[in-house]
């Protein structure tokens, strides 16, 4: 683009833990105003590269074996931590991959964002807070003024991620490193956020390193693409070229695995697709294609009736609640054996809350949850215990859901031990190794601890853990979001195979509509804690009725840089789920417009 020296140039960078090199001889440059997308296999060192640029690897115990990180004429690899401090946040900002664990649990969201502003800009506290509010509104967080005073654990995954984004953008950096910034966002908000980032880039001439697995996002955002594989850069080039003419076999494998929305048009049922894998250095298609006709509609496995979950947000001194947040308002649905029900919807619309409530990690104010027709309230403790084996929940945040002091092998074996599924120790170990391999990890990692993995690896560990207990129903909360598309495809096939073989059901919570389209039998669209539309996948994707569903589908990024879409800007009031007590939101009724296709009335 420009001929002047690049904003950032990474030269021959090698990062290692002890002797284990996680990034090897990596070189690339970022110009001011340019977006470099880094894509690649999960665990290929993308996050390590970004942490290295920030020099945060020091505190992890990693060290540089070689290389330079030139930023504005300085070599950051040689800079002292003190020098780095003036650069971090101010000149280079970073959005971390796992928003759940990246926010400090004991400070309010507002506090954590304003901190950066106060530090780098010479403004008063009031001004900073005002700025925080604007930032939060910009990333479309509802009720920004009050949200500032809430703590991270009271936010949904996507809300936390947006808080992280606001934090990184707060100081208008010269270089923004975004490590999977939109994994937890629904497509409409994702589109909005991407627009903001582009605006800001234009305005400030900001350079951007964009790490993502979503090829659609790459196509929309990137100028230049770096492809990483096993710690190395395998290919690099302008975005159109990479998409149009991928050279390296890995790149080709990756691109061929990208799920495309609309590719299933006309199909009644989900379909297992053959997998593109890299074999002997060449992409190869393996496995058969199969229509996933597994649903048995005799008796629902799980049935949720009128689930209502409200959180107390504010209380007065006497402990009387004044404000409540309606996270889930009278939601009802069934999941049949062998069925995949996808739960999609806006970030913060209550998807995780539904999952957690089914798992009894959250108390519902009202509603009945039945498993095989028996409500929880009527279950004996033995039945409840059995239920915990049959219903597994994959947490949205894999890192936080793993005990930091237990090896992943222990964590995976835990459900087996708990439910006494396998008696013999050796067999248990074997099973753990087998599970790890099924999710694409070498069995040797069983003895490692959670912090030693990449984001995507941890997610797969959680999947393996859920599978370990031979469940009947898996509630997968964004379980594939941190995986690169080829691994993702592999896991999808794993899920579908298990469904075909064992009749598993899934409550599949996801923002990735292409995956939803491919995988699910039925889809429920959630908005502000209520179901807007529910029906078979064909009904939802081809006879879309509700305006919110339509908006959602139109916002899905297309994995083709040549496709030029008008920028999406959602304006206007952000709906606020927090209401005064007594002013609860209206519960919408549903119309059945065709058999099994429900649409909320009057929205």
């Amino acid at each position, binding site marked *: 683009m420009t001929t002047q020296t690049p904003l950032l140039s990474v030269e021959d960078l090698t990062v290692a833990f002890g002797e284990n090199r996680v990034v090897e001889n990596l070189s690339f440059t970022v110009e001011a105003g340019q977006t470099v997308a880094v894509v690649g296999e999960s665990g290929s060192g993308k996050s390590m590269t970004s942490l290295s640029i920030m020099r945060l690897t020091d505190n992890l115990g990693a060290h540089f074996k070689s290389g330079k990180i030139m930023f504005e004429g300085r070599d950051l690899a040689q800079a002292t931590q003190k020098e780095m401090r003036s650069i*971090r946040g101010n000149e280079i900002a970073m959005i971390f991959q796992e928003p759940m664990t990246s926010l*400090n649990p*004991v400070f309010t969201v507002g506090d954590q964002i304003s*901190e950066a502003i106060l530090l780098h800009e010479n403004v008063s506290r009031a001004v900073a807070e005002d700025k925080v509010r604007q930032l939060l509104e910009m990333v479309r967080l509802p009720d920004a003024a009050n949200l500032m005073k809430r703590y991270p*654990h009271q936010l949904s995954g996507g809300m936390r991620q947006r808080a992280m984004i606001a934090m990184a953008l707060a100081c208008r950096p010269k270089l923004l490193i975004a490590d999977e910034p939109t994994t937890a966002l629904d497509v409409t908000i994702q589109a909005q956020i991407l627009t903001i980032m582009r605006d800001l880039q234009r305005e400030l001439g900001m350079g951007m390193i964009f790490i993502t697995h979503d090829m659609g996002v790459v196509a929309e955002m990137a100028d230049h693409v770096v492809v990483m594989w096993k710690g190395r850069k395998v290919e690099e080039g302008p975005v159109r070229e990479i998409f149009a003419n991928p050279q390296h076999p890995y790149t080709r494998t990756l691109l061929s695995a990208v799920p495309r929305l609309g590719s299933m048009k006309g199909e009644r049922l989900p379909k297992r697709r053959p997998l593109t894998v890299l074999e002997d250095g060449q992409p190869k298609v393996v496995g058969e294609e199969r229509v996933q006709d597994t649903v048995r509609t005799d008796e629902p496995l799980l049935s949720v009736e009128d689930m209502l979950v409200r959180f107390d947000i504010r209380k007065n001194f006497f402990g009387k609640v004044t404000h409540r947040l309606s996270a889930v308002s009278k939601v009802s649905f069934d999941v049949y054996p062998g069925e995949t029900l996808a739960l999609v919807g806006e970030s913060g619309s209550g998807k995780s809350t539904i999952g957690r409530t089914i798992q009894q990690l959250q108390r519902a104010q009202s509603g009945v949850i039945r498993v095989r027709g028996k409500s929880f309230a009527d279950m004996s403790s033995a039945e409840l215990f059995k239920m915990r084996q049959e219903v597994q929940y994959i947490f949205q945040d894999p890192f936080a859901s793993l005990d930091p002091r237990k090896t992943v092998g222990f964590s995976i074996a835990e459900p087996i031990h708990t439910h006494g599924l396998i008696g013999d120790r050796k067999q248990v170990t074997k099973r753990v190794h087998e599970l790890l391999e099924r999710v694409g990890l070498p069995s040797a990692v069983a003895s490692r601890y959670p912090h030693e993995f990449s984001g995507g690896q941890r997610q797969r560990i959680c999947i393996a853990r859920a599978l370990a207990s031979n469940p009947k129903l898996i509630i997968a909360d964004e379980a594939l979001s941190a995986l690169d598309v080829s691994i993702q495809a592999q896991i999808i096939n794993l899920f579908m195979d298990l469904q075909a073989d064992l009749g598993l059901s899934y409550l599949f919570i996801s923002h990735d509509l292409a995956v939803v389209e491919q995988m699910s039998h039925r889809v429920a669209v959630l908005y502000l804690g209520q179901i807007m539309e529910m029906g078979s996948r064909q009904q939802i994707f081809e006879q879309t009725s509700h305006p919110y569903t339509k908006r959602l589908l139109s916002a899905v990024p297309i994995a083709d840089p040549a496709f030029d879409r008008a920028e999406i800007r959602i304006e206007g009031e952000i709906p606020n789920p927090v209401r005064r007590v007594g002013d609860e939101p209206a519960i919408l009724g549903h119309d059945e417009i065709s058999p099994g296709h429900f649409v909320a009335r009057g929205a």
Partner: protein
Amino acid sequence: MATYLFKRILQAIFVVIVITLFVSYAVRLTGDPAVMMFAGGGGSMSEADLERVRAALGTDKPFYLQYFEFLKGLVTFDLGRSFAGGAPVSGLIAAAAPSTLKLAFVSMLVSIVMSIPLGIWAAVSRGKAADQMIRIFSLVGVSFPNFWLATMLVLLFSIALGLLPPSGMGSFESYIMPTLTMGIILTATNVRLVRTAMLETLQSQYVMVARAKGLSESKVLYKHALRNCAIPLITYFGLQFGGMLGGLVVIEKVFSWPGLGTLAFDAVNARDYPVLQAVITVLALLIVAVNLIVDIAYGLVDPRIRLE
């Protein structure tokens, strides 16, 4: 909040009743205040003399009556008079409590001010010279008893250097050695506790994020990391503070500090029931208050903890 506080107040009453009942009963097992009155001088002490004194003290009555008397006194704010000397108990407490509280507060402050930076320093320089030095200091602090350390300080500052008064409570200088002694002893443990607690949080991702924001190292450590490991620290500081109220006897004796510890100790020795019961009641209330504050602080420090 209000209901919570109300519940805790009811619980406090329970605590006070149980503890005073126990203490009142227990001290009566181990000696007779009437005899203690005659001790010290060479008076003859016939059974009749003892009866007479017991009647005057009221210790001839059955235990439950004595205890009810005491409870009545608590409710009517009349704590009676000391067996030794007949001074009003409330006066003695009013005189002694502030001195102990002052000593405890300042010692606690000294210890917190010393242990947090030192502990954090040790944590970040783990395994290096600074860490080892702090470790040795802390071990000296726990290995030698408080009277030993106190005497050493007195020998150094009062006798060798002539800088500070060896004992007594009064001027600013008189606070230095007692609080320093207590401070060193408390710090010895706290510093190690802070270090361990910090080590655990320093690994967290949010500490890394805080660094990524460009926050100064001290902000990262003192704000983000410290607050996250504050729970065990607050707990232990609370315990220490509570423990100190009852456990300052030795320091108070060595420095002739007229506090609750001395009052309790002398009361035990003289089997001065009214004073003892009152001191214990005051202690119990203070400790209930400290623990309540600690429990409330949990919720403030970590919003995920709910008061129940």
